[in-house]
């Protein structure tokens, strides 16, 4: 049993998830973390699961064609140690190349890491939302200012706000 990364992408139609997960279940594989979403008419799946590589690969074989499928063995589970408190980052504005690159570079320069990010383009409006972790030592004011300057250059709006949860 090894840790496997399975990726699937293809034109959307009803039943892609059912087909893929049924094939995996047939080999006794249990889905662990996964994310699946529709991107511009293409359905995309990323799955991490523990299972026998050869069996998983051959179980998914019949689905290849319209679906682009990769199966890869990964090293042992890599525990993500959070580096600091979580923040939500939102960026929106007129579409142009380089928005994601510029904004994420600012986060990286502050020692921050991104744990989840999605972008959507609709008409001329570009929207980015991300979960960000910043080290407790990060200078928030400096980062805020750097983000603002970057945003101004790009002609977009940016907000970074704490995403701390309430204990109930």
């Amino acid at each position, binding site marked *: 049993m090894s840790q496997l990364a399975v990726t699937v992408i293809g034109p959307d139609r009803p039943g892609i998830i059912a087909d893929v997960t049924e094939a995996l279940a047939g080999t006794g594989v249990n889905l662990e973390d996964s994310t699946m979403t529709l991107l511009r008419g293409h359905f995309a799946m990323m799955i991490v699961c523990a299972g026998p590589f050869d069996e998983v690969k051959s179980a998914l074989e019949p689905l290849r064609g319209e679906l682009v499928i990769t199966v890869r063995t990964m090293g042992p589970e890599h525990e993500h140690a959070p580096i600091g408190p979580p923040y939500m980052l939102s960026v929106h504005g007129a579409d142009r190349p380089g928005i994601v690159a510029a904004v994420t570079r600012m986060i990286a320069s502050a020692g921050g890491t991104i744990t989840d990010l999605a972008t959507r383009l609709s008409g001329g409006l570009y929207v980015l939302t991300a979960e960000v972790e910043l080290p407790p030592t990060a200078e928030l004011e400096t980062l805020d200012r750097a983000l603002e300057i970057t945003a101004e250059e790009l002609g977009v709006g940016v907000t970074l706000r704490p995403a701390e949860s309430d*204990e109930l």
Partner: protein
Amino acid sequence: MITDWSPARLDVEGRVLEVVRAPHPVLATEGATVDPLDPEMIQLAADLVATMRVSPGCVGLAAPQVGVAAQMFSLDVTGHPKTRTCHGVFVLCNAVVVEASRNEKAREGCMSVPDFTGDVKRATRLTVTGVLPGTTEEITITTDAFEARALQHEIDHCSGKLFLDRVAGAHAVYPRKVYQ
């Protein structure tokens, strides 16, 4: 009056109980209505307060979280930065939401779901009825902001629901961030 009430009125020593974690079936079980005069329920009320008190950051604890499928919970949002209206510490039996409005989304964590947090939309104006343990008269609590959210979270526990049942979208559950 709820603000006159204190756990001392229960006249029993609260015991610290173990908090159960999902997927324990009791957390998905609809709680039975309780008799607020039943000595066992009065003991449970004291136990809920005692267990809530020793749990860091805990502002509310429902009976199912200590393994009892009953409609009772303790609450105390005193001093929380998001609290506006505050009724202090209290235990409520057979609570029912009678009015709820002005939904807002916020991220919640729960002692029974220690590895995840999630974004949940809840009313920020809320009216609830219920009975204090050791009494028989139905009381009405009208509150807002964080106390309203906490009440809804605990009432959900009493009907076998977790915040996971109410998250605001496929990407609204997050691994909990614990850092040093």
